[in-house]
């Protein structure tokens, strides 16, 4: 190589280095850590928004990289599905978007009447609500009864029928036919007779989509299909909007194209006088699919649009720094915790669980998840905005030594290791610890923090990362898989009753060999008894106290390690007056959302 070529090569290398350095400097100056930073203004939460100052008209575009699961009110059990359900149907009761604790009558004409010591619930319904075409007729109490009864039909297989409606007389053995404990004495009255005084839970459950009326004459033939075709191909509606449908009520291929789009239009039979939703928008076009990163930018830089699913961390940071008014971080979107196998293995020892709890740097996990915009460090299990949260210590949580240090405290942890029989404060036994986490998003990093904490305590840790659905279906939800810890499990309330947060994941008798949601196999007799007692308290305040006590017991026993109270980040275009449902993990409420310039 002669001198001139060498000089040219050197010059090229220097130019490339200079360019790389310039790019790095540019990137550094434009990157932010605001999501994790302290002392900055928190993102808007959506609480206390005026629901009735929008303008009528216009078309909202909704970008949604995920598809819906079910559009049948009897099957829907997913936050995105609920968006469609509550915009197109009227349940007996519903939480207003800015209120997650008090239900308002929707199809019902007033509050439920509880009698017989909490064993009978009577609901009167409005007499001016009609079904959309082609049914067109008035909704009656029989339509509500059928809607609930079909939940037990295996072709519908409502996922929460037994937990919330199982105490209705005859419901436990129902298969879709009439249930003895549901009586409709006239067209506007429905009465529920319960086997136990669990009226307070049923009252909350009457806000779920299963109470949205379904006409048997229309849905009955469709319910004979396996699975039902009601909500898959055809449906009738009672809310302000409906999926665009043919005259025969078929929406598949028109108002809903799987994996492509959904279109909501005004329901011609909707009666605005019987529904508190102002229904400002004329039309909602939901675009299904696409890369989340691109969608987020389309929403932030574009107009008339919202992103339906969770934006990427990069877009949340961008919104926070450049489009602050277009970002909401809605609290009460559930929680996440590290499940610990209470039944066998090292974590069957309560002091080892407490040690693990104390050692874990939960603040670091929240930081990895996206920082304070996407959540707070969790200190117990009842989530913010739910009855019992304050009674259980609020954000500070119950006062136990292992719960005092969000950043983790090895000294406290070692104290409990010693109490567990390890004088050095480190584990010296022969058992290894198997952790199974999700390989999606930030989860691997979060799982690594759990692994590090346990390794510091002397455990030999094996970390397995799999797809999130596999994590639940093959490992964490299968007791026989003998997983010691799952760092990514979480729960979202079904409604504001704390029973819906604590019952399924921590109630011993609910443990099943597959599809188990009591991931830590928590089966503590005292906790079980306290849950039974709390579920039968009729007075709402006393019930909240009783569930807060259960929450305290769960932390005392360190049955799992709560690490984040999730907030739901949502982004909208500058001209959208988006309204978030505080009760539905912050999802958009199309019944109240409007455009500034329709």
């Amino acid at each position: 190589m002669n001198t001139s070529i060498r000089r040219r090569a050197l010059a090229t290398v220097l130019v490339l280095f200079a360019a790389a350095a310039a790019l790095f400097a540019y990137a550094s100056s434009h990157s932010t850590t605001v999501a994790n930073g302290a002392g900055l203004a928190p993102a808007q939460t959506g609480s206390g928004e005026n629901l009735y100052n929008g303008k009528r008209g216009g078309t909202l575009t909704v970008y949604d990289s995920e598809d819906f699961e079910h559009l049948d009110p009897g099957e829907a059990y997913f936050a995105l599905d609920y968006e469609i359900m509550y915009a197109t149907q009227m349940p007996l009761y519903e939480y207003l978007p800015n209120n997650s604790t008090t239900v308002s009558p929707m199809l019902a004409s007033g509050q439920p009447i509880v009698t017989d010591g909490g064993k009978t619930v009577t609901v009167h319904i409005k007499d001016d609500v009609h079904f959309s075409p082609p049914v067109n007729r008035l909704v009656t109490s029989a339509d509500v009864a059928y809607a609930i009864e079909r939940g037990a039909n295996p072709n519908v297989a409502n996922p929460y029928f037994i937990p919330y409606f199982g105490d209705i007389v005859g419901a436990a053995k129902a298969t879709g036919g009439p249930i003895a404990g549901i009586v409709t004495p006239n067209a506007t009255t429905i009465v529920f007779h319960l086997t136990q005084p669990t009226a307070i839970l049923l009252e909350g459950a009457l806000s779920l989509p299963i109470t949205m009326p379904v006409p048997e004459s229309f849905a009955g033939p469709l319910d004979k299909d396996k699975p039902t075709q009601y909500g898959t191909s055809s449906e009738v509606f009672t809310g302000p909007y409906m999926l665009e449908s043919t005259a025969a009520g078929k929406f598949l291929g028109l108002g809903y194209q799987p994996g492509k789009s959904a279109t909501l239009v005004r329901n011609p039979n909707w009666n605005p006088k019987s529904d508190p939703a102002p229904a400002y928008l004329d039309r909602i076009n939901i675009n299904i699919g696409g890369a989340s990163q691109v969608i987020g930018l389309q929403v932030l830089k574009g107009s008339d649009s919202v992103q339906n699913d969770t934006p990427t961390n990069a877009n949340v940071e961008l919104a926070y720094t450049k489009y602050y008014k277009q970002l909401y971080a809605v609290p009460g979107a559930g929680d996440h915790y590290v499940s610990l196998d209470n039944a066998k293995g090292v974590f069957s020892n309560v002091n080892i669980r407490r040690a693990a709890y104390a050692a874990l740097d939960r603040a670091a996990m929240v930081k990895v998840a996206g920082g304070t915009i996407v959540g707070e460090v969790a200190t117990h299990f009842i989530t913010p905005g739910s009855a019992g949260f304050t009674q259980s210590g609020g954000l500070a949580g119950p006062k136990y030594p292992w719960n005092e240090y969000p950043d983790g405290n090895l000294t406290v942890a070692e104290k409990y290791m010693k109490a567990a029989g390890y004088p050095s404060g480190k584990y010296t036994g022969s058992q290894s610890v198997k952790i199974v986490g999700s390989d999606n998003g930030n989860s691997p990093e979060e799982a690594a923090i759990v692994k590090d904490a346990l390794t510091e305590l002397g455990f030999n840790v094996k970390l397995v990362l799999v797809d999130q659905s596999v994590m639940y279906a093959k490992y964490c939800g299968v007791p026989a898989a003998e997983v010691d810890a799952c760092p990514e499990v979480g729960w979202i309330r079904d409604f504001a009753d704390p029973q819906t947060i604590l019952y399924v994941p921590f109630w011993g008798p609910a443990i099943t060999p597959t599809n188990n949601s009591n991931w830590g196999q928590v089966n503590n007799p005292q906790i079980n008894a306290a849950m039974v007692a709390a579920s039968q308290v009729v007075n709402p305040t006393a019930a909240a106290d009783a569930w807060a006590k259960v929450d305290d017991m769960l932390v005392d026993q360190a049955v799992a390690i709560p690490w984040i109270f999730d907030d739901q980040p949502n982004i909208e275009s500058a001209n959208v007056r988006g309204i978030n449902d505080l009760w539905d993990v912050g999802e958009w409420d199309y019944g109240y959302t409007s455009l500034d310039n329709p």
Partner: protein
Amino acid sequence: MTGFIIRRLLWGVVLLIAVIAVTFMIFYLLPSVNPAILRAGRNGSPKIIAEISKDLGLNHPIYVQFWNYIKNIILHGNFGYSYYYNDPVGGLIANRLPATLSLTVGAAFLWIVVGVPVGIISAIKRRTLLDRAAMGTALVFVSAPVFWLGLIALYVFANDIGQFHVFPGAGSYVGLTVNPLKWFESLLLPWMVLSATSTAIYARLVRGSLLQVMGEDYIRTARAKGLSERRVILKHGMRSAITPLVTVLGLDIAGLLGGAILTEGVFDIPGIGRLNIDAIGHGDVTIVQGTVLVASIFIIVANILVDIAYAFLDPRVRYE
């Protein structure tokens, strides 16, 4: 030739059955999710899961399920039912095929009309600045992942999020029959992105192949006979040089017809690739099997067509 085609078709059928069997086995041997559990939802009880398993035929032994699947495809053209969408898989694939077809055909057209001439010019102008610039650019596009290239293209040229509002952005796809002009506009950027890598590969392939051919004796003979350089290159040189290109082209197009997963994902084009990737996420085995089967059919048919084309393009190739 007829016997050859029949033999190839029969082997194609055998290969298809083997592909179905392998795909089927993958979902039973690897840790996927029981569709009945997915269908039953978050609180699905063991009773409900068992009931759904029975309805879906998942309670039968694997060989019975496999036999039923094959039987339904061959006798009824039935690819099964999607667990997630509750829809026939055949219908879902047919619904998505036009978008994938539009994307693939347009991109293939683009990479041929750009890649082949660039390769020829590079070969003719070997070691000139033009050649180096063309091959240097080709190297960049060969190295660039299509997902990254797609995002960069959107950030620069999309009319919603780009710096220069030139092309319609992600999610703008409309069907050809709905609005031909919008269909064309919406696919311009995806075509360019999808064809970029292939254009580069084809340019390099044509250049290398042509350079090799141009050194052959029969090219020297053609020149000696006084033929024009254009005729020597296009008639004698390219005819030989294009043979390996046909092989790659057939397989490339067939592969993309099975779904250009990344391009469809970035540009939000509802094609077979996106259907497939969504189905993998949902654990929707029947859709994955259906899309794999369709992709296999395309590849096998393309292989047969390539073999036949060989006979016409290269006089040295003859089939008994």
